[in-house]
């Protein structure tokens, strides 16, 4: 008898990872489920069942799905690691006037690091998640990560830091399905989370928004040092004081507290003097970006024109990708892009293939 291949599947209690686990069971794998407990729920203000991915009710859901599928299930406590690798950099990024992307760090340091180790430790051949992405072989037999069939749900943007060595060990069972197909499958499979809301936003932030979260985690003394003035570009006119640069993100036009006859946008945050610069939308556009701390899953030719995604819900735009150092690139967009935001990722694609990416820094 051939030994069944064993898969560790990361289960959040949501629809996608529940479907992933069920599909693997149906495909004949020996499946082991695990949930990472990443945040202390007792301090979390998220209403249970509100469709986020970290409340304790979700752990219970994941366990119930595992029980339904008759697979073993474990809760892995990753709170300390999550705080160090995800929460702390998230807070620092906001205080540095950037707009962070915590899901990438969670993938880099928890899902595809901690869980890869668990995969080995539990004698599993593969690690599976409910990400909308696909692992495919190209003509030369090389494994790569490709965007999911469902273009709208594609989550490869969050996967650019994946270590190429682990790619052959990854399974994304829902990557070839659309979201409605995934829901229908769960329904048919009798999985109780089939109708659960999609998780939106950042799992640990909760209903009160990220400003509130930052205020609950950072001392008032530190936050007070982030106060400054709102100034108008290009004439430097002072529009008024603001309560801290962490309240602002590039391209933001709502909640500026300005009474002005024309619509103004945050176009720049200057951390040297905490000035939030506002101006007309045209100042938001730029035709280039600097990228640091890059990771490549597959090689990229210098000066190659690639599809580049500069935020999650963004259609890749063509840009010339110019190597400027070991892990740095300069991007020259063929068409100017709106709100190229420091702290977000620039992720490179050749067609549907995810090649890698890096972090957008100040121009």
């Amino acid at each position, binding site marked *: 008898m051939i030994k069944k291949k064993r898969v560790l599947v990361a289960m959040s209690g949501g629809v996608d990872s529940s479907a992933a686990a069920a599909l693997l069971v149906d495909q004949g794998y020996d499946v082991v489920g695990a949930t990472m*407990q990443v945040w202390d729920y007792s301090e979390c203000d998220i209403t249970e069942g509100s469709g986020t991915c970290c409340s304790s009710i979700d752990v219970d859901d994941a366990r119930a799905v595992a029980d339904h599928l008759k*697979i073993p299930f474990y809760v892995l406590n990753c709170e*300390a690691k999550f705080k160090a690798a995800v929460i702390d950099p998230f807070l620092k990024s906001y205080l540095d006037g950037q707009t962070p992307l915590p899901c990438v760090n969670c993938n880099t340091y928890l899902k595809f690091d901690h869980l890869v*180790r668990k995969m*080995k*430790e539990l*004698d599993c051949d593969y690690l599976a998640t409910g990400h909308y992405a696909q692992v495919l072989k190209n003509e030369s037999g090389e494994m790569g990560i490709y965007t999911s069939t469902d273009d709208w749900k594609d989550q490869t943007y969050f996967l650019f830091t994946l270590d190429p060595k*682990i790619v052959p060990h990854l399974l994304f069972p829902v990557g070839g399905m659309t979201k409605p197909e995934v829901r229908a499958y769960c329904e048919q499979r009798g999985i109780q989370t089939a109708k659960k809301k999609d998780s939106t936003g950042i799992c640990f932030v909760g209903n009160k928004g990220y400003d509130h979260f930052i205020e609950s985690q950072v001392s008032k003394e530190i936050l007070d040092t982030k106060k400054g003035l709102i100034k108008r570009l290009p004439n430097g006119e002072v529009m008024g004081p603001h309560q801290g640069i962490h309240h602002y993100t590039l391209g933001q036009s709502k909640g500026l507290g300005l009474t002005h006859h024309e619509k103004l946008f945050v176009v720049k945050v200057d951390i040297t003097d905490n000035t939030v610069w506002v101006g007309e939308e045209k100042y938001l556009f730029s035709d280039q970006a600097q990228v640091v701390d890059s990771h490549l899953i597959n090689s990229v030719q210098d000066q190659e024109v690639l599809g580049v995604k500069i935020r999650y819900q963004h259609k890749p735009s063509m840009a010339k990708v110019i190597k400027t150092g070991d892990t740095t690139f300069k991007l020259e967009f063929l068409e100017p892009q709106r709100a190229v935001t420091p702290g977000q990722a620039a992720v490179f694609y050749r067609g549907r293939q995810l090649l890698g990416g890096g972090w957008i820094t100040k121009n």
Partner: protein
Amino acid sequence: MNSRLVYLDHNATTPLHPLVKNSLIQELDSHFGNPSSIHWAGRKAKNLIRNARQNLSELFSVSPLELIFTSGASESNNTVIQTLFLNLKNRTEYICSAIEHPSVLKTMQHIESLGALVHRIPVSREGQLDLEFYQNVLSEKTALVSVMLANNETGNLFPIKRMAEMAHEKGALFHTDAVQGLGKIDVNLKDLGVDYASFSAHKFYALKGSGLLYCKKSSPQFPFLFGGAQERSRRGGTENVLGIMTFGLMAKMKKEITEESLRLEKLRDHMQQQILKLIPNTRVTGSSKNRLPNTLSLVIDGIDGETLLMNLDIKGFAVSTGAACSSGNPEPSPVLLAMGLSRAEAQGSLRVSLGWQNTEDEINDFIKELVLSVQRLRLIDTEFQKDFEL
């Protein structure tokens, strides 16, 4: 998951004894009356409780009236500590060991916050209580001493009889959480000389949700749960008739307890000897002399106990890393830390606790699987640092 399931975690809880299961099925229809009712349905239920109390009193060599049914040992422990604190005003000091169950430790913490002075007896690496410390803190001010009969993790037994005598010399009361002794060793409460003792039915092949509090006739007793006149007004609330009945059935198995103790001790010693021989850098936690016959607590160097547990679980073997209550918690076992083990050692802890239904074949299969898993995990650790640069 493996189709064959082997349960080796009897210090956490036990499966139902087959005889208990059969009686339970028979009584399912007849037990339903409220024991306080005068009619036939009530009388039937009342008699089931009476018989159980009778059996348990014989098992523990005490009078039936000295036994109060509770929901379990946690309630019994809370009852003794909290009611004495509320009612004994002239003595304000309490003593417990540093490695009690949380239902004693947390209750002690609670009364400490309300003004009691609590002394915690330290424990050595070998699992022995510091009796000199105990002697020094005992005084005319001591209200109550609470020390467990046997530790849930190491299985180490404590000198309860002697410690109770020492307490009584100072006029203090003595309570023992005897949960882990039940069904594993002979527990003669009269001989132990304690004032109070706590038990849970589910550690003794009976149903969950039923327990006992032994209160010596001459010792002060106060109700904790007020309500009806159940348990002679010492514990309000309609009785858990089926749970009590199953508990009482098990109490008749005095002979089996003795036989199983001997059998399990041999099995455990065989397992210990094999594991220590086949897995290098492995040690028994606590004293290997004075302990429960079914318990083996180990520290396996370089292994994360929780990861090992998951591996064994996938193969169908249920074991524990320390107490069940602390599972899912990244903190290593407080018992092992209190014994002076390092965090790293405590992280590598594994507890195997045998029960009446375990066979030699099961133990041999377990040893094989444990050896394989440890070898593989130890290899990954070195391999991984190379491969994934973690």
